[in-house]
């Protein structure tokens, strides 16, 4: 971490004081996904075109209202990356035919939930990377199919309760590693972010905007509705995800993975889990030591392999 990156964002004070994304949207009160999106939107700016796969954020634009200042297009859950190819091609044709000035060009952005990004839309996304499509993919990861009542998805963490994984053990599967799935395609840029770490987030968006090609911004998005906690805890829970090491903040660029924030003294996973109703069954009626331990060991194993 010797190469000091040149950035406009050194402290929280450097973050924008006015916000570009319109308020008045239909996201839940306290939505961690919306928090991340408005921070990201401030940096990407209004010359952007969003291709949105079905999910909670589809409801950002409900005719005749939109919070976006640029364009927005809605696609089916599996097809946002294909939609992005279409609009990128259309923009390129307009540029080539000189029907659009070079400075009117727009950043093409896919916006999808984890249901699309980790599952239904993965095939179209993989193909878009294969074609080296010039786009940014933002996934707000609320670890389930939020819009339809929080069924489990490929992003649901081990042991979490969802509406399709109840009982004393919760979800029996494991969260997919989308960061590595993307990195294996050798795209331009892959980064994890979270709205509760806005400086780290701003720097990563700033960097992504200076690059071309496929770029992923994977935002863990605390969701009061699906994760079952008081909306005012959204930021606190996000910070705990980082402090416990459950959500590593990192980036992949030029073939290398670098962690952008090393939790000095990692808190125990308890601090994160016990704040959320979706993990209640790990503590009530009795503490499930075995399952909590498994989660802790998983996190410890991850960090034991991190050398910076």
């Amino acid at each position: 971490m010797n190469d000091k990156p040149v950035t406009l964002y050194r402290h929280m004070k450097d973050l924008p004081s006015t916000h570009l994304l319109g308020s008045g949207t239909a996201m839940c009160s306290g939505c961690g996904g919306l928090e991340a999106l408005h921070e990201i939107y401030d940096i990407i700016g209004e010359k952007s075109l969003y291709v949105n796969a079905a999910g909670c954020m589809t409801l950002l634009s409900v005719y005749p209202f939109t919070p976006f200042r640029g364009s927005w297009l809605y696609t089916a859950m599996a097809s946002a990356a294909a939609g992005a190819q279409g609009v990128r091609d259309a923009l390129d044709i307009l540029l080539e035919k000189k029907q659009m000035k070079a400075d009117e060009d727009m950043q093409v952005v896919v916006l999808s939930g984890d249901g699309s990004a980790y599952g239904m839309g993965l095939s179209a996304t993989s193909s878009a990377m294969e074609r080296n499509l010039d786009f940014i993919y933002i996934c707000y990861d609320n670890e389930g199919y939020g819009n339809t009542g929080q069924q489990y998805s490929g992003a649901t963490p081990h042991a979490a309760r969802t509406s399709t994984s109840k009982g004393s053990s919760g979800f029996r599967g494991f969260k997919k590693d989308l960061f590595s799935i993307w990195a294996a395609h050798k795209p331009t840029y892959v980064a994890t972010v979270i709205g509760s770490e806005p400086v780290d987030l701003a720097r990563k968006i700033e960097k992504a905007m200076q690059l071309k090609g496929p770029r992923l911004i994977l935002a863990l998005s605390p969701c009061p509705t699906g994760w079952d906690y008081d909306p005012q805890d959204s930021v606190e829970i996000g910070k705990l995800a980082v402090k416990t090491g459950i959500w590593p903040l990192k980036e992949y660029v030029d073939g290398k993975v670098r962690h952008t924030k090393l939790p000095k003294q990692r808190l125990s996973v308890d601090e994160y889990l016990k704040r959320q109703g979706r993990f209640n069954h790990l503590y009530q009626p009795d503490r499930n030591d075995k399952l909590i331990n498994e989660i802790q060991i998983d996190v410890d194993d991850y960090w034991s392999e991190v050398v910076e």
Partner: protein
Amino acid sequence: MYRIRFHGRGGQGMKTASRILGTAFFLEGYEVQDAPRYGAERRGAPIFAYVRAAKQTIHERGVIQQPDLVIIADESLASVSSAGTLIGIDKHCVLLIVSNESPESWKHRLNLDCTVLTLAYEQLDIHQISYAGIVCTGAAARLTGIISNETLQRAIKQELAAFDESVVANNLHQALDAYKKMAEHEACVQKSQEISADNYQAPEWITLPFDDANISAPAIHASANSVQIKTGLWRSFRPVIDYQHCKHCWWICSTYCPDGAINVDDSGQPQIDYDHCKGCMVCVAQCPSHAISIIPEQQAEVAAPEVTAIPGDKR
């Protein structure tokens, strides 16, 4: 048949309230329909749920248009026209509002000639918000005169089986308290006849001419016009900044606010845009100098005039 409609906000437990009432009717030997209805909005936004219960097969479908009992869990919704709380209320209907004001005042204010009842609450507590629904279930059960105390308890235990004991106990306590308070109005709700298909009045459709895609496609040619939607109406509590203690570190509250509803004025002071603040209270939790407090919306309406939003961005 009984037709009962519950109005509240996402997060107040209205869906569960109607579900439990439905189960209670079922346990009393009724055939039941119960359904929640949400619009595009979410937690904090107006939602409603409804129950039909009858001794014979229920043929009616869809949202209840002619209710026998309407319960409004959050009195601030009565004035929100998009919440549709008053739809179909006629003379025969009973309206119960959770409110500390008198039934007469509501009757006058809403210009209604039906029976209006109120259920007083003690102190508004933001942490008790999810119990708003169960209070309504308890009250509704008594008002129908059909559901016994024991059945109500069974229905609650059955529907909340997945929750821990303390949650169930709290729900029972709240429901039974409301059940007791409604004793003098027991069985005041009158059931009504099923609406017959013979009397069905078809809606007045308007047939639109076929237009080209560039005209008929729902394209929005505006920039950030979502600000016209006042999501501030979702709130039942509001955060208030005490400028005596505010250290002007706007980058904290203004950045964390999920809705971008905290703007910074020219003097570097954060200003909450109450037209759009949904009342999540993330700012309250994150303010390092504890300069933001929470007050019930009703209190704020009397105390301070609405602060107008600082329009858009200045970049």
